[in-house]
């Protein structure tokens, strides 16, 4: 079967049944992608979707061999998910995931030299998640402006304090509104 051959070819690649995807170490990502692209049985010529996922550090429970649940701290990481399709063989999707080491200086190899479709999508991930793709020909912000500093799609992103008065504040906006009212100690501008 294809999947077995694939697993035999790349022993480092791990099947993740929960998400039906292959977890690929970043050292061999380009080799794996090149294999998928050129192998006559796969011929995954189209990289349809590239996207980032942010996983904060969390406590996870794992079942040991004796059936006991043990809780341990899982470090946070960023993850890039690739959806491959084969246009000529009409197969797919084949999903690869590639994880960074930690969230501080996330670096992954760029897949753009193999698949042009990743060019803008990797730029978008760089822009919104802050993953640096080494080997990308033109890595700069794409959706946010160049001077923007933070990475908005990260789960721990704090938006800048740019509250504008609105008549029906809720939740986070309400907190902001109250803070602002105390700070400014002046009536909101609509009352003026």
């Amino acid at each position, binding site marked *: 079967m294809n999947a077995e051959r694939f697993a035999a070819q790349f022993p480092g690649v791990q099947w993740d049944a929960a998400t039906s995807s292959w977890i690929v170490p970043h050292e061999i990502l380009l080799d794996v992608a090149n294999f998928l692209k050129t192998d006559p049985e796969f011929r995954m010529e189209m990289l349809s*979707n590239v996207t980032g996922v942010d996983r904060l550090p969390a406590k996870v429970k794992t079942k040991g061999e004796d059936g006991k649940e043990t809780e341990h701290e899982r470090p946070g990481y960023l993850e890039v998910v690739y*959806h491959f399709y084969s246009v000529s063989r009409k197969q797919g999707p084949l999903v690869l995931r590639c994880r960074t080491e930690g969230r501080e200086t996330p670096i992954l190899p760029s897949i753009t030299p193999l698949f042009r479709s990743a060019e803008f999508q990797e730029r978008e991930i760089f822009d919104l998640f802050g993953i640096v793709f080494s080997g990308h020909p*033109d890595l700069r912000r794409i*959706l946010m402006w160049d001077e923007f500093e933070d990475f908005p799609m990260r789960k721990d992103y704090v938006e800048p304090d740019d509250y504008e008065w609105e008549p029906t504040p809720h939740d986070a906006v309400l907190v902001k509104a109250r803070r602002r009212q105390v700070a400014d100690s002046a009536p909101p501008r609509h009352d003026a």
Partner: protein
Amino acid sequence: MTPDAPPSGAPAESLYGPRSYRVWGDDALAGQFLEVSMGPHHPSTHGVFRMDVVLDGETVVRLKPVFGYLHRNHEKLAEGMSWLGSMPYTDRLDYLCSMTNNWAYALAVEKLAGLGVPERAEYIRVIVGELTRLVNHICLAGFLLADLGALGTPLLYAFREREKILDVFEEISGARMMCNYMRFGGVRADLSPEVLQKIARIVDRFPAFLDEFERLVSGNEILLSRCQGVGVLPRDLAVNAGVTGPMLRASGVDYDLRKVDRYGIYDRFEFRVPLGEHGDVYDRYMLRILEMRESISILRQALAQMPEKGEILHPQAKLRNFRPKPGEAYGRIEGPKGELGFYLISDGGVCPYRYRVRPPSFINLTVLEDMCLGQKVADVIVIFGSVDIVLGEADR
């Protein structure tokens, strides 16, 4: 424009600050070049989109798209909102085709939650989806011709027909463009017999309109000379760059998700997939006209096969407190502009953990530079118009 080009001739230090461009060595830029910032407020950029174009005389030697003028981080918004709450926001992605956006999102959530869709709702989805394709393609044809200089007439004829379809959308969903019509496991409102009659009437009259439209422009000598052989997209590049939809098929790649994935009930209809030979602007234009004819054939079959009565929402579908089980799903449909996909991760909560839109408008623009290099600056407008984008989707 830069009045005094830098001595080296390298436009990298332009008015707009340093940029790192890849292809160009010092030798290639020895002459005098002109950097033009085309857009964001340009009538033919179909919204707020900018192209940094470097010209040698009138020939394009470099083109960099600049995005983000309409960016509102749709994905982040959706991650703080209930699953249903994102549905009206998907209307605002590609605001010409809200029905298919709804469909793609509903399809991905149904895949994630394991929800089925009742038979009648599937037919309704196909009908409104194909009507949306008509709306989109006829608009594209009109806009493309307006970009070519045929100001007004073809676009207004196109809008006249679109109007009739939008009236139907208003009747079934309450809004002309922001339909917010589909729900997880079905659709929101049923089609009454009168509406179905109206749709049948539109479907009957549409081929005559298409014939007229083609008589108006398809054989026009100006159109032929401006479009044929312009902006050729080679087949291999199209596949490699993830180009989808009519753009891909105009380059001769037989890849239509309605045939490949057979999502919904598309396996019940007989239709052909038009393919282009040259991959130029004219092929892309003609391909959309041909696709509209196929859509009409699908609509005819759907109207004929549609069950008279039946549920339109799966009985287990929930509006409030909808929590799909943890997992992830990637659902994609053949939108009028290309493969529109939604990649969703659920952690079992009321909000999506990760919500990603795979926007065809955005990814199809990857090849814009490749198509424009070596062409004249006036052709950039035409090539860009033939890509068919909506900035609401490209910038999200």
